């Protein structure tokens, strides 16, 4: 065990890479989720079709397969990414598709009366979305986004298979050099758990702020184990 803990600089560097890929991937996924999710709420048929194709395609393919494809297949077509870029691209595209469904569902779940009131105040379509629907939909998006963020973080462990030196990759290195298999994997499982709990705290703070903005009481606090992870994979 002490040999494993002695290699903590390596583990911390790995954890930092994991956090970085998680954050970049989450930001990219969020941008995609908003763009394609809002396209899905549009009245135009073309935009809605764009939403469907993106969601069905990238939700259907596994993140790891996408990562391999960006990493091994695309360079043969002359498209070359740095390993981290390939990983972020794959993870972002995959989780952006889940996020787009969350965005679309949340915007559609804002009561129609709010849309009507905005219409009666003569807001343009863009103003209705930006000033009325989206702020209210945000409160609905945050809990499922929180679950997706944890799922995304877990998926980043796959990058170790394409030789990115994340936490899992470092663990395999340490395991190989020390032979301390059980201790190494136990330590990084705990580290992943800590990262996940930290992410959950951040999401809960955001939830609390939006709830206050909407003048609601705090959302019923979910016990850590009771997070409705089900929403994370809802098609």
């Amino acid at each position: 065990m002490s040999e494993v803990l002695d290699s903590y600089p390596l583990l911390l560097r790995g954890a930092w890479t994991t956090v970085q890929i998680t954050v970049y991937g989450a930001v990219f996924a969020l941008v995609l989720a908003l763009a394609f999710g809002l396209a899905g709420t549009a009245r135009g048929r073309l935009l809605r079709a764009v939403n469907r194709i993106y969601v069905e395609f990238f939700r259907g393919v596994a993140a790891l397969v996408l990562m391999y494809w960006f990493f091994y297949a695309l360079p043969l077509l002359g498209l070359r990414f740095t390993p981290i870029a390939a990983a972020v691209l794959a993870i972002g595209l995959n989780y952006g598709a889940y996020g787009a469904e969350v965005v679309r569902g949340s915007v559609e779940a804002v009561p129609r009366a709010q849309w009507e009131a905005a219409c009666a105040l003569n807001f343009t379509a863009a103003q209705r979305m930006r000033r009325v629907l989206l702020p209210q939909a945000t409160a609905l998006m945050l809990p499922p986004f929180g679950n997706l963020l944890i799922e995304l973080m877990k998926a980043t462990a796959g990058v170790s298979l394409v030789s990115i030196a994340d936490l899992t990759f470092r663990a395999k290195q340490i395991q190989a050099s020390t032979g301390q298999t059980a201790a190494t994997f136990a330590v990084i499982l705990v580290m992943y758990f800590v990262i996940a709990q930290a992410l959950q705290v951040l999401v809960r703070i955001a939830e609390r702020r939006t709830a206050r903005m909407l003048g609601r009481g705090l959302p019923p606090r979910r016990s850590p184990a009771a997070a409705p992870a089900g929403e994370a994979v809802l098609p």
Partner: protein
Amino acid sequence: MNWDWNYTGKLIPDLLDGLRVTVTATLLGYLIALALGLVWTLLRRSPNPLVHQTVRWVTEFVRSTPLLVQLFFLFYVLPSWGITLGALTAGIVGLGLHYSTYTAEVYRAGIEDVPRGQWEAATALNLPRRRVWAGVVLPQAVRRVVPSLGNYLIALFKDTPFLFGITVTELLGSAFDEGAHTLKYLEPITVAGLFFIAVSVVSSLALRRLEKHYATH
């Protein structure tokens, strides 16, 4: 570099073998997830706080850590404790364990969603405890959980490529091995990706029909 159709054609049988492994792992893993999830749910209803708190944190731990690392643990650590699992078996157990923490949540939510009034009505009729569960609570809960359980089947399927990390030659693994032979990765990995999309899209369509069925009946 251009797409080589000839090569693609030759790949298909091997990739189908990989797909067979993937589907086997999915179905067996899912069975474990369904059964083990029920165990977690029942243990969490235990009146003993030590039991339900332990279960709560164990499931939370398993659910918020990466499947890949859990697979490593099962595959590389257990042998030193005297339990040696084949790669595929370790993979199936890992998938089942990981997803059991999700199905447990689904069961729990399904049971909690049964309105209080139903429990009270059953008590008012003085039904025995067994009848309350078998006749009142579970039939109503099942209707609520089927769509979510279906979603987790698809999610589990899409997590099977992680088994490649512990040397299982499932769909991604067989595609990668093909590519490693010829150094032509484009065709095998693309075809493997399309297989994944095809299976998930078809299953989510089937699931949506199932959902409609359960919504109306």
